[in-house]
Each structure stands twice: as structure tokens, then as C-alpha cells.
């Protein structure tokens, strides 16, 4: 569970700042999820791959939706690439350590990390929001969004600028990505983000009756399909196995950004360079897209495809110790207008 420290926003700038933090979290989940996905051997783990694809796609949608809200409020979304391992802003449980998010290859540890990131709150969110609004403090991502949502509901229509730098579903994600032209749209976007990530205490299904991310990761982690049952609590893990083959993954090192590639072959170094180039290009194109050049979204997708291909290549180049490395997700600006 990501726990964030926040107090209720008192003005639009506060809300934008909170949403900017949310952008960082949504964006920051992508590399670890992609690292796990990329490291699955071709043809192995189809059910797990399908679930990871869905999660990654929805995280991208969440990122765009939050950017849409910021743009509609007159802000300028910023994409800042985290350096892994990172806490993504998690403050940890009371007296405990924050969750450290790493780039981990496909395996139980990576899936447990995904569950930890997406872990739902224990109490119905809106009751919690009411008490938090009065006091502020530590909260889950869902509660954090709820706090922002409660403030956005108080804004007058004049606070919103319809059609400002919006990314809609005409390019990608038909039916799932929409413009934020006012509070109703923003509320729907926040509901979608929270619902798809955490589900709710009593129901693992999101607003589209699909499984929320926490439970998708759980299916892979337990190697069991989350199955509906007639008695309480309504679901159980299995008995049908999902068909996970933990050996169906490259022996990839964790957090390659922390690895010293200077001791590895030129091929390994070149492969990392190609990954980072594609990743950086993707971020830069995405940054332009969320700042009003919606057409750049296509370029971002092409770079993502290049990243995937570069990752496939990198995962086939042995390091000096015989392991392999997936993409480091290290960002370097690729040109003018790049993210900072």
C-alpha cells in the first residue's frame, strides 16, 4: 500500500500540486510493471501476460486522465522519471518503513510488489475521506484521490477550462479515455482510477465489472484464478490455477539502473543504451502530448514499441555474471521540449 501524507487542499494550486503527485505515482508504477512484463519469456505465461497488459494499459489511461484534470484546472502536467528503487512518495505505515518499489523480473516478488502498491484500503473510502478532510494525515492512494475529489467538487464551473490540452480516446483506449471539461468528468476519472486500482473492500470488481489491479496481481502471485463463490466473502483464490510458470522468465537482475554495466560487454551496454533512448523518447513525446500536442501520443506509442523491442534484445544479452538485464528506465532528455 502506498501511503501518502496530505492535507485537504484549500485552493486550486494545492489541488494541482496533489494531482501532480498522483501523476508521479501513476507514471512511477509503469516501469516496474513493464519490467516484469518484458521479462516474461516469449510464449510463456499467457494468462499472466494478459493481466499485466491490462494493468499497464489502465495505468497509462490513469496517467492521461489525471493529466486531463490538471490541464482542465489550468495547470501544466509534468512527467518526472523516477530513479529505481524508489518509494514513489510512500511514507510507510505508522512506525514502519516505506514501500520500496524496485524493477523486479517476473516472479512472486514482483507480483507481491504489485499487490503491495495496489493494496486497497480497509474501510469504505468515502467515510475515511470525511474524517481525513477534517484532520489530514497519512492515507492510501484511494483516500488521497478522494481528498482531491472532495475539493474539486467545491470548485465553481469557472475553475474549469473545457477542451484545454485534453487527450481523448480517438487515438488509443477507445471508450476508456475521455476529456475532463468540468467536475463531473474529473469525478468520473477519479472513480475510474481508484476503482481499477484497488477495487473496494467488499468487491474486487471495478466500475466496469473487471477485476481491479490488486486482484489481478494476486491471481498471478497465488497462481489461482480469483473465483466467485456463493458463500462469504464471495470470492476465493482458485481452485482453478492461472497457469503461472515462474521459470518462464528471463533471469533478469533487479534494478538494472543500480548495476554497473561498465564491467559488462559492449553489447550489454549498447542494449541498455537503446532501452534508455527509447524510454527517454517515450517520456519526451508523452510530455508534449499532455502539454497540448496530442498528436505526439502516437510518437510516444512508437517509442514504447521501440522500448519493448529494445528490452527484448537486452534480455538476450548476457551480463558478465551470466544473468541478463531488462531496461534500466533511466531518463535522458532527447531534445527541446523534453521532460525535466
Amino acid at each position: 500500500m502506498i501511503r501518502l501524507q496530505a492535507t485537504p487542499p484549500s485552493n486550486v494550486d494545492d489541488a494541482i500540486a496533489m494531482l501532480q503527485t498522483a501523476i508521479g505515482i501513476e507514471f512511477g508504477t509503469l516501469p516496474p510493471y513493464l519490467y516484469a512484463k518484458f521479462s516474461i519469456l516469449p510464449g510463456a505465461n499467457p494468462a499472466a501476460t494478459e493481466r499485466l497488459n491490462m494493468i499497464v494499459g489502465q495505468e497509462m489511461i490513469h496517467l492521461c486522465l489525471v493529466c486531463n484534470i490538471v490541464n482542465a484546472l489550468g495547470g501544466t502536467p509534468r512527467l518526472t522519471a523516477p530513479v529505481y528503487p524508489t518509494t514513489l512518495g510512500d511514507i510507510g505505515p505508522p512506525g514502519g518503513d516505506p514501500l520500496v518499489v524496485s524493477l523486479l523480473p517476473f516472479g512472486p516478488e514482483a507480483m507481491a510488489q504489485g499487490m503491495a502498491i495496489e493494496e486497497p484500503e480497509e474501510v469504505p473510502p468515502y467515510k475515511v475521506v470525511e474524517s481525513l478532510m477534517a484532520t489530514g494525515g497519512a492515507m492510501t492512494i484511494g483516500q488521497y484521490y478522494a481528498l482531491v475529489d472532495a475539493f474539486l467538487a467545491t470548485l465553481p464551473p469557472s475553475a474549469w477550462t473545457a477542451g484545454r490540452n485534453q487527450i481523448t480516446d480517438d487515438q488509443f483506449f477507445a471508450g476508456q479515455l475521455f476529456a475532463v471539461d468540468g467536475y463531473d468528468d474529473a469525478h468520473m476519472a477519479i472513480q475510474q482510477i481508484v476503482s481499477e486500482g484497488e477495487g473496494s473492500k467488499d468487491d474486487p470488481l471495478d466500475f466496469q465489472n473487471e477485476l481491479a489491479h490488486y486482484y489481478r496481481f494476486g491471481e498471478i502471485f497465488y497462481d489461482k484464478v480469483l473465483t466467485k463463490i456463493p458463500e462469504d466473502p464471495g470470492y476465493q483464490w482458485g481452485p482453478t490455477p492461472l497457469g503461472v510458470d515462474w521459470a518462464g522468465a528471463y533471469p533478469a537482475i533487479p534494478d538494472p539502473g543500480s548495476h554497473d554495466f561498465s564491467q559488462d560487454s559492449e553489447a550489454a551496454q549498447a542494449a541498455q543504451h537503446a532501452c534508455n533512448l527509447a524510454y527517454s523518447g517515450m517520456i519526451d513525446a508523452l510530455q508534449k502530448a499532455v502539454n497540448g500536442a496530442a498528436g505526439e501520443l502516437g510518437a510516444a506509442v512508437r517509442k514504447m514499441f521501440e522500448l519493448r523491442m529494445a528490452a527484448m534484445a537486452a534480455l538476450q544479452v548476457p551480463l558478465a555474471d551470466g544473468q541478463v538485464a531488462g531496461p534500466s528506465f533511466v531518463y535522458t532528455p532527447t531534445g527541446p521540449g523534453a521532460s525535466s
Partner: protein
Amino acid sequence: MSVLETPRLYFTGQMVWDPIVTNNYQEFYNEVTCDPAPPNDPVADFRQRAIAAVDPRNWNPHGTHRSTFLAEVSGVDVGSGLDTSDPVVGAPASFLGMLVDAEPYGTISSQLFFDSMQFGIAGGCRLTCPRTFRVMSRYVNFGRNSYNQIKAGVASVIWQTSIPSSSLLQIDPHDSPALQALAEALASENGVIGLTVRWNTYRTIYYDDPAIISNSSPLLSQAAQALIAKLNVPNSFQPNPARSLLVGVVGLWRQGEPACEPGDRALLAQLPNETVATAFARVTGDALVLDLSNSISEVDAELTKQDLGTLSVCAMSADGAKVAKVLGSLPYKSYDRCSYVATSGLVTLPLSAPDAELAATAPLQLRSGSLVYLAEEVLRAAPSTQQNIYLNQTDAAVEAELQVLSFGAPAGAGVTVSRYDWDGTTATLLDTAQTGPDGVASFEVAPAAAGAVLPYLFTAGSEAPAPAQLDPQLTPYIYVRTLPADAEIGAMDPSWDNVYANVLAKWNAMAPCMDNWLLLDQPAQVRAYAAMLRKLTDPAAFEAYRFMPVTRDMTEGERTLLYKFLDAPPEPAAKSFAAQPTAAARPAGPDIERLNRAMRGG
């Protein structure tokens, strides 16, 4: 059994269409030679012309062909009427396909290539339908939404595919009585051979603006110009999907029913402009079920169904000239908007036992007094599984099977089926065939001497007159697309210049969306993705969602030249693309065999 019998599921929602339409126009594409028009037009110039043509016609030059559901299961019927309390109700209906016209210039040969569709989710109530047959469009109704005259917005279409039980079709009923009933029916030996999924799309809008309802609307021109401005931004990617509403049904597929178009009893449209479009009917025990999903118009933007008053369902004399008995009436509320959405256009008319017996063997009509809207064609042929056939010029002939139905059931042996050539004005008899015991007649379909896209029309019965025209509401038909051999291209030296000019430039011009995945004018990238390109263009993957080119118009010669290039040793310049695995690199790890397979491209 059929979708007109129970059990069945209903689903409703929207469909999003994102085809590239540039190849729909002769000024941009030659559907016979499969080349852009004019040939050898520089890619940049072609793309710019395509953008300029957005106002008023070429509405989606940056399309991707992807088409998807935004839909959910809306109800079930296990034999006692509409039930919206079944646990499967509310489950997502998921479909992603590639929309491709077999005849690019035309509007009646659309098809959806897909891999799987799903109703529900894993772990809960779920129906998983892997593809055996493409989804085919049939019975285009050009008079459906006359208030909405923009492009194809006026029309509605029936889409259908069927999934054999012998495939990987999977039903996870859990606590859904409807899915349990479907599973039990599939397990029975009652002539059920799988499931049919049929849906109807209507009220299509463009530019996301339901207010644009005319091709001459100033709003359309404004929207088109706005799109042009976006398309002209360097590096832009601006698809412009159209959006339709849909209602659908999932039900049982029985032996002798066409896989990809409605079987049962066809009640053909009788009045011009599809005042009431062709419908389908079946007597199911004590009821007559009518599929009016494609038949009744919406007359305004609120989607109000046309009020035709109370309609009569009549059993006719054998020659269809006289009303033998009025079987029942359909008041407006039985086919109004509310009813339409609730049961996906299926209308059930209870019958007494004697009436059911009469209805089973008497031609049916839908009337209003003496005005006949629909009349049954008792003997009717329908392609069994293949409505659109693709051939290479050098291929051997293939068989096309036509299922003949009599009162909705497979006809016996000895029925004459006639095949006609259609040149756009005249139907010319080509040959005839006789049905076998299963009511199926086979025709040999040979490739054309060069590239061609040809329709064949069919009639059933020795007395049937020649079709007056290719009317998708009335005439059974198939399309055969023959791709030219292009042997001279296949014989070329596999230099980059040749491959690009004669193969890749075509799709680089026609499909700018490819820029999002692969720059087709970059030899290093093309080489880097050689294994993937071979996999995606392999004719063995022709039916797959990801097959390339999506438009299925790569000729044998083009493929030969491309593969020679991909198989040739890389030129030094191609190594500049950094994401190249080294051939000698082998990772140590716990499963070397699998890793090695992965290094060969999986």
C-alpha cells in the same frame, strides 16, 4: 436451436470503428492491382492528398482498423422471458477486431478479423469465444436512420459469427442459470454445434458529434477542417473513429445454420428504402420469435422507433397470395425503443398449438392491413461459412458452400442453386449446382486471371428468377477477391530500393498509423523487426487479428520480395539500429532451452 430459441444472452452498448478509409476511393487506391493511385506517388505527397481529401469524404486517413465493443450483457432469456437478474447481467462484453472491406470500394463486404471475444471475466460468469470464422456483415439496411444521412450513419448492419463446440469455446457458468443452460444445451446431442453471436450496429456518428447528420452540413466541413489541421501537425497521429450503437444476442448454433449470417426463416423487405428491413423468424414451441434488430428505423436523434402502428403477423397460403390466418399482432410497444434495447430487437409472439403448427409450414408475412412490409422467401440459400473469399492469382480453385434452407430448416437433396455473375448492372447466370442430403450445394471458385474483386449472387430453386440487382437485403452473395500474382515484383533483386518502392511504400502511404509501431521507410528498423514482420505477414496467420497488412492485400510477388530482403544478410547500414541482439550472446540461466527458443524470436 438458433439465437431465436432459448437460452440466449442479450448485450447492448456501443461499437467504435477506426478504419482507414483512404482505400475506399478510386482516386487513392486501385482495388484490382492492389496499388495506391496513382502508382509511385511519393509517400509524402500521397499522405498529403489523403489529408486534403478529409473534407468532405476521407474521414479517417490515420485510422488503425481497430474496432471494439463498449458493451455489457444486458439480459438473458432461458425460456421464460427477459431476465435481468441473472448474475451474468452487467458483465462486460469484450471484442476487439480489425474492420476490413473485402471490396474496398463497396460497403457490403465488411468483415471483422479477431482472435477472441468474451462475455464476463475469468473467475466469474464467463463465456470465452475463440475465433473460428471471421465476423461478417450482412443485410446492410440503407434506410435505417434516415434522419442521420452522414456517410454510413444512415445504415445499420447485422454482424455474425459462430463458434463451434469443438473449438476452445469455454463456458464458466458459476451461478448464472443462463450460462448453465447454454452449457447444458451445448452438451446435449440435439443438433447444437456451438454458439452464434449476432449483433446489430446502427446510429453511427462521425467526428464524435451527433449533430452532424448530413454530408453537406457546415458542421461537417468545420469538423473536417479541424481534423485536417490536426493531421497537418508534424508527427501527428489523429485517428477519427466513428461510433455506433449496438444490440446483440448470443445463442445456440445448430447444424445446418450458416455460421456468419442469419439462418432461420428470412422475411424479406418488400417496400423501397427498407421501410421495414429484412427480418428473421422461427417458431419455437409455443411462440414465434422475430428478429427485428435490423428492421425498424429510428426516426430522430432521440432514437424513437418508427411507429408503424399495430402490425400483423400472418400465415399465408402456400403461394403467399392470401392470408390464411393472422397469427397475432405486434403493437408499437413491442418494437419501440424500450423493447428494442431490452431484448436486442427480438420480439416474441405467443402462439396456440394449432397456430404454431400452421406457422411452421405456411409462408409468413408482416403486414399492416393489406400493406405487406415483410414476406418470407421460403427457399433461400446462404453461404455456409465463407462470405468473403481471398485468393491469389496462382491458387487452385476452392469450394464455396451454400446452405439451402426451406422454412428455416436445411433443405433436402436435389434443390437447384444458381450462381450469377454481377457486373454492376446485370446478373448473368454462370452455373448451377444441386444440394446434397444436407441441403448444401457446392460451387468451385477459381481465382480471376488477374487481380479482381467479384461478387457472385445466388438463388435457390429451379424456378427462381435471376436477381434484379445486388441488394444486400434480398440477395444472397459472396465476394471473391483475387490478388494479382505480381510475379515480376517477386523476381526483383531484394535491394532496399526495390523492396521499399514495390512493397513497403504502399502501406507507408496508405497506413500512416504504422508510424506508431514501425517506420516502414527505415531499412534498419525493417530489418530489426524481420522476425516479427515474417510472423505477422505469414499467410498462415491470415485470420489473426494482428495479421499484416491488415487490408489483406499483399500479393504473392510482394511477399516473395519482402521475404528475400528480410532473409538476406543485413547491410552494414542496418546495424545502426541499436536494439540488435548479438548472435553469439547466450544468457546463462535455469532454462537454457527456453531462452534459446526466445532468442529465435519465440
